[in-house]
Every structure is written in structure tokens, then in C-alpha cells.
């Protein structure tokens, strides 16, 4: 006796009622990108760049009470090469910034970044000569978390926001592979061979309105040493 397979026929393109493709029972039709992004967003591997007190709160999020594992992001790795989500938790000083940038560049694509806490996002109360006023000036940040320190719940909220962002953007085949790497190499060579730059970035040029800067010109800061 012949068995009739259960299933349905995929709908055809406009004008045709059927595509002639038979899909067996249990088939889900979606796009490749959606599936890949779904996988990515539920297996984020964070890189905990915890430089200060915010890092303690980040540890709490990893522990059983708040349990970031519920969102598939519990695999904190201490090698950037195994991570795709950087969480900058805490203030970043001048001397640390090149390190942060290098770690960011070492993370494989696709990668995302969360700036956690007032210090990482804006410098917080540490408006001093050594503390970078917001890491987003120097690396791309996807999600910001306010607070000093943020509650663990808001970190989980940020992970969920990150997930929806991952789901919406990105493409499985979008990575250009080698040409992109080549471009990065060229960029790095450019950075390394650049001479000293004026000490004040143009967008902060109005800082002296409070009289903070001294006469005598702006300092030149060498580019290459800390890289």
C-alpha cells in the first residue's frame, strides 16, 4: 500500500500557486541569515574587560543568582580570540586604551561591544588627566549601560538588547574575508608610522573655555610607543 507523505508544497513566486518543491512535515522555512543570527545571538562569548569596580558586578552576573547563562552568554573567555562580545567594565586610563584597542582588534568577526557603567561610557566622575572620557571615542560600542555600578539586571537587559541587535543585523555571507584583513593591515601600518599628533583632539578643542589649558601650546604625544 502506498504511503502518502505528509507535508506541504512550498508556495511559488508571484503568479504561480506552487513552486513544485515539496516540504516534508516539520519543515520550517526561513532565511539563512535569520538562522545564523539566531545562533549567534544565543551563544555570545563575552570578553570581560573588567578594569575597575564594575567588574565585580559583572562577576555577579556570571554567578548563579543572576545567571547570564540563561541568555547563552556565560562562556567568559580571557583570550580575545575566542570571544565575540567585549564588555568594557570600568574606567580605562590612557595607558590602557591601546591595550583595549589591540584586544578589540584581536577579536574575530563578528564582534560586538558593550560599554558598562558611567566610567566606561563617559569617564564618570574621573574627569582627570589620565582617564579616557568614554571608550566609545576610540572603539565602536553597540550597547551602553548606565549606572555606577549598573545593577546586574541592567547588564542582562543590555545582553538582551545586544541579542535583538544581533538578530536584526549582520549576514552570514557578509564577511569579506581576506580583503578586509588586508585593509586592516594597511591601516595598522599607517597608524604605526604616523608621527606625533597635536595633543588635543579637534572635538575637544573648546575644553579651554574653562581655562584648563595653559598657554605654551599643545603637547605632542608620540603615537607609536604604546602600540
Amino acid at each position, binding site marked *: 500500500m502506498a504511503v502518502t507523505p505528509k507535508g506541504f508544497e512550498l508556495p511559488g513566486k508571484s503568479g504561480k500557486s506552487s513552486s513544485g518543491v515539496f516540504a516534508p512535515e516539520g519543515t520550517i522555512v526561513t532565511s539563512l541569515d535569520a538562522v545564523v543570527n539566531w545562533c549567534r545571538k544565543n551563544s555570545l562569548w563575552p570578553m570581560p574587560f573588567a578594569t575597575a569596580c564594575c567588574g565585580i558586578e559583572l562577576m555577579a552576573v556570571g554567578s548563579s543568582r543572576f545567571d547570564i547563562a540563561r541568555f547563552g552568554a556565560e562562556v567568559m573567555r580571557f583570550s580575545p580570540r575566542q570571544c565575540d562580545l567585549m564588555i568594557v567594565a570600568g574606567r580605562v586610563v590612557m595607558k590602557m*586604551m591601546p591595550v583595549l*584597542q589591540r584586544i578589540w582588534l584581536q577579536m574575530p568577526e563578528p564582534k560586538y561591544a558593550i560599554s558598562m557603567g558611567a566610567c566606561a561610557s563617559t569617564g564618570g566622575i574621573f574627569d582627570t588627566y589620565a582617564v*579616557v572620557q568614554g571608550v566609545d571615542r576610540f572603539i565602536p560600542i553597540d550597547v551602553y549601560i548606565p549606572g555606577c555600578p549598573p545593577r546586574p539586571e541592567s547588564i542582562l537587559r543590555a545582553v538582551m538588547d545586544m541579542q535583538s541587535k544581533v538578530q536584526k543585523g549582520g549576514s552570514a555571507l557578509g564577511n569579506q574575508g581576506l580583503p578586509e584583513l588586508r585593509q586592516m593591515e594597511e591601516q595598522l601600518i599607517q597608524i604605526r608610522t604616523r608621527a606625533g599628533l597635536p595633543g588635543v583632539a579637534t572635538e575637544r578643542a573648546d575644553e579651554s573655555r574653562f581655562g584648563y589649558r595653559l598657554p605654551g601650546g599643545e603637547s605632542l604625544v608620540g603615537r607609536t610607543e604604546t602600540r
Partner: protein
Amino acid sequence: MTTKQTSKPLPDATLARIRKRCGEGVFSVSSHLDNLRLYVPGSKLVELATILRDEFGFHLTELGGADYLGYPGRSPASHRFEVHYVLLNYDTAERLILKSGVSDPDPTLPTLVPVWLGAGWMEREVFDMYGIVFQGHPDLRRILMPEEFQSFPLRKDYPLRGRGERHNFERVTREDS
């Protein structure tokens, strides 16, 4: 009966012995609460420190600097910077502070590394923060600030927010990384 409660960790007798050993005019003395300070010119610093170490058993416990630019009540004739060396005798628990002043444009003091090896990193820190040069230091590099940093951030005429050094990094964009 006296109501004055200041303790005297350094007995007058010891001070008298130090004075006798070094001769008059090498240092001047002042005190605040139980701190006894000997002000010594940079040229006599190593000599006095060596005597205090070898004959009086003092060890270096702390070394730091201060910038007195615009300090209220300070006479304009006195030095702008002061470096202090806090000494302690481990056996008798006597405490003593050496102070030495320097001024712009050439803030230079002799190093005390040959006397107390532990002065090395502390002198590097004073150099890093105030730009005081310790002549003869074996390795006078910056210790806290990045190598390419050009100012001395704890000087009073250095702006609290810096001169823009903290903004001067390459921007890594999404396209670059």
C-alpha cells in the same frame, strides 16, 4: 603640669648627637606635632643620609614630593618643590624626616639609591609626577604615566583635566576592526 600631648619619637639627645656629628649649618630643624624635620640642601643630602644610615641606624620608609606653588603663607624666597624622606630606626622606633627643596628651572637633587636601594622606584615616581631629576639615578624613567607623556601631572600648574593627552588615540571604527 603640662597639657601638651605631643609625643617625641626622636629624643633631643639623638638630635643633639646628629648635630654634633654633622656640624652646625648642615641642616635646619622644624617640627609639627610629633614630626621632626631636618631641612638639608641638596648638596649635603647624600652625606647626611649616609651618616644617618651608618651611625644612627635609620632606614628609608617613604619618599615623596610636594609642589608648593601658590601655597598660602609660604615665602616667595623658599623653594617651589620639596622632596621628603621619612626615616625610621627599626630598633628604637625613632622617626625622622629629611626634607630637601628644589626650584625651577632646574629641579635637581642627588639620588639616594646608593644609600637606600629602595629609593629607586619612589624617586622614579617623584620624577614622573613632578619632574624632579635625581642625579645619578640608575634608571630614571617614568613609572606610572606612559613613556610618551610629556608633562608632570602633579605640578600645580598642570590642568586637572590634562592638556588633551587622554584624547589622543587612534579611533578604531567598525570598518577597521
